[in-house]
């Protein structure tokens, strides 16, 4: 069992934090991971920056642009992560668009992930069906968990396919939206969370997109196994610095 499955077995109301590798500073990757470790978050998602992040809102777009102009590359990220498991035991997932992974070489990418101790991958523009047909074998060879997204529009039939293919958790997109912080959920979102909860899927659920504060985090936790925060954290460290990470996590968790 890998770190992702273990943490879901052990804990409820998980908090997973996303950050863009290479932002705010090119060498902040391990600093951020150390801070998140100290803050006792339950999972970390490292965003591999991409020039054209289709599913992301302005905050992650800007952080990706900055990271790329800082000089972040796939090779550099793996180099920075080589001591990852000396500093933290938290499950770590890489979230990246498919094209940079394809150019790096899928097999080489997976092999490097395994070597540095990455537990899984989220590739938002690699659809479940194409993954199953063409790439599943490679990811499984390196024991990487693949996590897929569902949205309020995803049919139950497709959710079942995604549940079969996902190993670790299902990433439940909170609304019709790209990533970005929002203040609260409306009644339609809550209904959708409840509908999915009732499906009794084999994977746990993490809610992402639009989680920004204690209120949205708690609402998400009531209807799932936890939540993912990205844009709100990126904004926070941009304004207050990476060293204030613990303060941000306290705002969410305490």
């Amino acid at each position, binding site marked *: 069992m890998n770190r992702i499955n273990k943490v879901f077995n052990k804990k409820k109301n998980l908090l997973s934090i996303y950050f863009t590798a290479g932002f705010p500073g090119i060498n902040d990757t391990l600093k951020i991971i150390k801070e998140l470790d100290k803050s006792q978050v339950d999972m970390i998602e490292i965003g591999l920056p*991409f020039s054209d992040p289709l599913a992301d809102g302005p905050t992650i777009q800007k952080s990706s642009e900055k990271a790329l102009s800082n000089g972040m590359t796939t090779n550099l990220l793996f180099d920075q992560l080589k001591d990852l498991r000396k500093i933290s035991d938290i499950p770590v997932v890489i979230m990246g668009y498919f*094209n940079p992974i394809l150019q790096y070489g899928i097999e080489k990418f997976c092999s490097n992930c395994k070597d540095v101790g990455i537990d899984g991958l989220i590739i*938002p523009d690699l659809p479940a069906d194409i993954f199953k047909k063409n790439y599943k074998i490679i990811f499984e060879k390196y024991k990487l968990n693949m996590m897929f997204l569902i949205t309020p529009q995803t049919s139950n039939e497709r959710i079942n396919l995604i549940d079969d293919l996902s190993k670790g958790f299902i990433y439940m997109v909170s609304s019709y*939206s790209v990533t970005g912080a929002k203040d609260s959920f409306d009644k339609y979102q809550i209904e959708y969370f409840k509908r999915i909860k009732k499906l009794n899927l084999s994977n746990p659920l993490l809610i992402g997109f639009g989680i920004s504060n204690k209120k949205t985090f708690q609402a998400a936790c009531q209807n799932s196994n936890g939540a993912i925060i990205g844009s709100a954290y990126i904004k926070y460290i941009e304004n207050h610095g990476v060293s204030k990470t613990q303060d941000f996590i306290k705002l969410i968790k305490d």
Partner: protein
Amino acid sequence: MKNFNVNKDGFYGDFGGAFIPEMLFPNIDELQKNYIKISESKEFKKEFNQLLHDYVGRPTPLYYAKRLSEKFKTKIYLKREDLCHTGAHKINNTIGQILLAKKLGKKRIIAETGAGQHGVATATVCALMGVECVIYMGEVDISRQAPNVARMKMLGAKVRPATSGSKTLKDATNEAIRDWISNPVDTHYIIGSVVGPHPYPDMVARFQSVIGYETKKQLLKFENTENPTHVIACVGGGSNAAGLFYPFLNNKNVNIVCVEAAGKGVHSGESAATSILGTEGIIHGSKTLLMQTKDGQITEPYSISAGLDYPGIGPMHANLFRSKRGEFISIDDSDAMKWGLILSQMEGIIPAIETSHAFAVLDKMKFGKNDIIIFNCSGRGDKDLDTYINYFKL
């Protein structure tokens, strides 16, 4: 016989498919399941053809270019898409897609635009149908294509600037996709070229194929054959080329020539010659050839013609290139501009700069006296007057 059209999975050889975030799955799935059924229905065809005839002004003429033919000692025909309403072939596709969107019950239209031609063609059909219209356009393009921005506004469209990345066509496309993610139920996204996730490349090619089918019919009257020896068109994303080539894709006796923009020279660092500079990857949901860094970051192309500076080409064209079914030629800014002037002064037709690129192959390729060459005269030059004025100090 090898098939150069799309297969049932949405691929052209190695290229195509639908590499989309899950948020877009229901929309793309809906289109995949319905686009052929709807667009091949009797009712749809009747409405589509009627509008192409009454509103767009089709059929566009096939014109025998006498002076050019004499000069190059061959037979040169121009398919006059520049005479379409709104000044380019783009409207064939927007008419098709707005009818499709209505059949699917969509209430709102979004589109991306680079030079503004597709934006104008989309705003036009939205006005025609009384549908809300939002056009995404890169901030940089908005400032360099002011007349088309004004046209879109006059037609009632909202023009929203794309302020991310390089602030040009690819970023406008990203913004349109993000809008669609946020408005998946009531909105249809009219993509302007044969790019994007399946079924867009095939759907747009089908709506543009009227160009090729008309050409066949018209050529029969001139030459007693439906088949030319060469079909030639400029390729940015590739929609005017796809439309002309469509009926000839699997006819090996017809040579296919794709003309790309070399910008300031293929290896100058400022070029849009994707077949030479591009590598296989994924852009806007489609596996195709695109210009990118070795790390897979998409790079910004350059051409003097705003309609050709897209960092990818459609998957149909990527397959024509890889399979060698099509010949690819790149034309730099100065040759394209020169041919804008030649066509104006030899045939009395001021072409769009995109279109000028295609004609410049007359200096690069040898043709025989019995060859029958069809150029897609895809757009007129009004929108480019400023560029022509500055370039030639007119």
